[in-house]
């Protein structure tokens, strides 16, 4: 009965349009009250869900991404990407994907990526005769790359949800190869769709232009190195590196480029606070929801159930992927990670799957969910920028879904894609 209340209230409120954070909080509160437990525990868990030291990275990475977007760093990264791949068929689509790798190295957020890259690329693509739905779909799918390129605060959330014993440096490293794979798959898809629709290629700008683009992009690219190198080598903690990212972004945009005036600085700061508040409130309420699931022993029941279904790891991983894809359609990234990690990680561990490997699977899976309605924040942002309805985007998004799911399966069944690189560092 407790579980029916927990999931029933959550699902019911979700359907009537209550914000997700409140669906999670109110469902937890209702369940605790029904069980006759002190309701205080719900708010204690909301508080401690938001309060782990590693959570400090979230406002910092979001803030740094916001500053970079407004302060001229995103444009420079895109310009550099354009010199590299603009001459391929569907050139601007290719640029869009490559820019997501670069920008993803700064922001850990797919939404930030979609608004930064999409804000610049979608109007440009429309002007050059690309269909808007194509521009929107390339942007939305490429944005998922940001989740896998280090740094990714979602990997930090995963590490915490897994009990804190998973190395953040290893998780960051593990995302790199899958990110490149996803980028490759999306570039191929963008190419094929571009050929079918007859989109142009840009002229090749020549080696000098590439070199010039690189020099201009160096300060932005350097930040990727500072963050990743800092965490990997242990010079900085993840929290500290995220703070350095903010300081560096402030220095670059306020002092070096001087592209950020007072009003934009205020907007960036208040915008980062708003975004962080919403993300972390969901994390907090998901923490309470997750605590109740542990209290009601859902993880143990899931393991028993899964074992009954099959004892073949290939089948179990496929089942988990399907469940995650379905959950991903109506759940956002952070609650997905917080709620699913304690349930599924023990299951896959029992089948010998490395927690780092599972982290990559979970994050890519939840990332695909960011592009699926009814709750698809990345898709919504891209659609809003491109002034395309979600239905229009859905009609032509399938090739890109296909590419993402293919990469997901590859990553699921070939652990080496995730584990080879971190193992080199060990």
């Amino acid at each position: 009965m407790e579980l029916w209340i927990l999931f029933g209230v959550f699902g019911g409120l979700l359907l009537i349009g209550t914000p997700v954070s409140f669906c999670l909080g109110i469902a937890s509160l209702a369940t605790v009250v029904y069980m006759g437990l002190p309701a205080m525990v719900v708010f204690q868990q909301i508080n401690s869900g938001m309060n782990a030291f590693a959570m400090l990275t979230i406002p910092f990475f979001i803030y740094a991404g916001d500053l970079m977007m407004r302060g001229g760093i995103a444009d420079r990264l895109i310009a550099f990407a354009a010199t590299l791949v603009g001459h391929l068929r569907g050139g601007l689509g290719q640029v869009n994907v490559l820019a997501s790798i670069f920008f993803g190295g700064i922001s850990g957020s797919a939404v930030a990526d979609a608004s930064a890259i999409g804000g610049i690329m979608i109007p440009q693509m429309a002007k050059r005769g690309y269909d808007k739905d194509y521009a929107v779909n390339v942007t939305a799918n490429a944005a998922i790359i940001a989740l896998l390129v280090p740094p990714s605060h979602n990997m930090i959330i995963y590490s915490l949800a897994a009990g804190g014993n998973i190395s953040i440096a290893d998780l960051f490293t593990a995302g790199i190869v899958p990110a490149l794979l996803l980028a490759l798959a999306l570039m191929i898809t963008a190419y094929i769709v571009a050929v079918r629709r007859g989109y142009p290629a840009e002229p090749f700008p020549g080696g000098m232009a590439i070199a010039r683009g690189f020099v201009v992009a160096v300060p932005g690219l350097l930040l990727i190195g500072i963050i990743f190198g800092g965490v990997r080598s242990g010079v900085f903690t993840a929290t500290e590196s995220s703070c350095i990212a903010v300081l560096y972004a402030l220095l670059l945009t306020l002092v070096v480029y001087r592209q950020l005036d007072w009003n934009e600085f205020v907007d960036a700061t208040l915008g980062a606070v708003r975004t962080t508040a919403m993300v972390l409130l969901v994390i907090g309420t998901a923490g309470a929801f997750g605590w109740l699931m542990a209290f009601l022993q859902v993880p143990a029941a899931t393991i028993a159930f899964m074992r009954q279904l099959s004892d073949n790891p290939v089948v179990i991983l496929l089942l988990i992927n399907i469940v995650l894809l379905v959950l991903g359609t109506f759940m956002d990234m952070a609650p997905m990670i917080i709620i699913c990690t304690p349930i599924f990680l023990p299951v896959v561990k029992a089948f010998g799957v490395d927690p780092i490997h599972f982290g990559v699977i979970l994050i890519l899976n939840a990332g695909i969910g960011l592009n699926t309605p009814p709750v698809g924040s990345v898709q919504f942002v891209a659609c809003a920028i491109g002034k395309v309805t979600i239905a229009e985007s859905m009609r032509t998004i399938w090739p890109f879904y296909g590419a993402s799911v293919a990469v997901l399966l590859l990553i699921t069944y070939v652990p080496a894609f995730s584990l080879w690189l971190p193992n080199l560092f060990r």
Partner: protein
Amino acid sequence: QTVTLRSTDIHPDGYPTIEAVKFMGSLIEQRTGGRIKINVFHSAQLGGEKDTIEQTRFGVIDMNRINMAPFNNLIAETNVPSLPFLFRSVAHMRKVMDGEIGDGILNAFSAHGLVGLAFYDSGARSFYNSKRPIATLADMKGMKIRVQQSDMFIDLVNALGANATPMPFGEVYTSLQTGVIDGAENNWPSFESTRHFEVAKFYSLTEHSMSPEVLVMSKRSFDRLSAGDRDIVRAAARESVAKMRELWEAREKSSEATVRGRGAQVNPVEKQAFIDAMRPIYEKYVKDAALKAMVAKIQAVTLA
């Protein structure tokens, strides 16, 4: 009607403290004809130490097997057995905690919504780190050491010339690996079960603390039981201590063997300088007359 008491622990399944509480549960189940059971939530499933202490006080969970240090900032009496180099040996500590001094400390929990049921000892805690063997006090200098979230442990490590970093248990492995901290301190079984030896191989036998751990029950849950059942619970908790010690000693040996076999480097320590450096800790945490008397009494206990 049957009652299932929920008990929590930060250690993984199979750890001696968890097996001891399960054993206690089986005693209670037998003696109440199955009316009362214990369900142990291991691996911090219901939260970290600070969270579960609060949950136990509010009566959300019924029992908690937990370290003494997280209580230090709440209950003054718990500082005493946590004092560095207070006990001369494990035998000395057991004699003290099993006697009236131990009972006095257990009673102190009742002012905070808790019922102290029993002490589970946890051997001696020593420092380990990723940089170098600690042989003399000078080797501690500048080292960043994780401590439990307790002011006394912060002051202890700072007094040794190192840099104390209070941090929740669950964040230590990653922090060692990424160099946020150079080391931490714990007993053999925890050093092994947390896999910290993989990332910090120098284990130096400072044996600076023999602070026992404690099994507490929520006062709200305890008061709901009939007087007869309360006696059964208390007695079973006491009896589980012997079981715990037996499991603990075996585990200590096997853990030590495991980590040595996996390349941990163990070295003895010049202890006197460490002991001498602890005077300010005693001055700061043993202020009032009652605590001073308790310390003097503990020091006077002899092993006959």
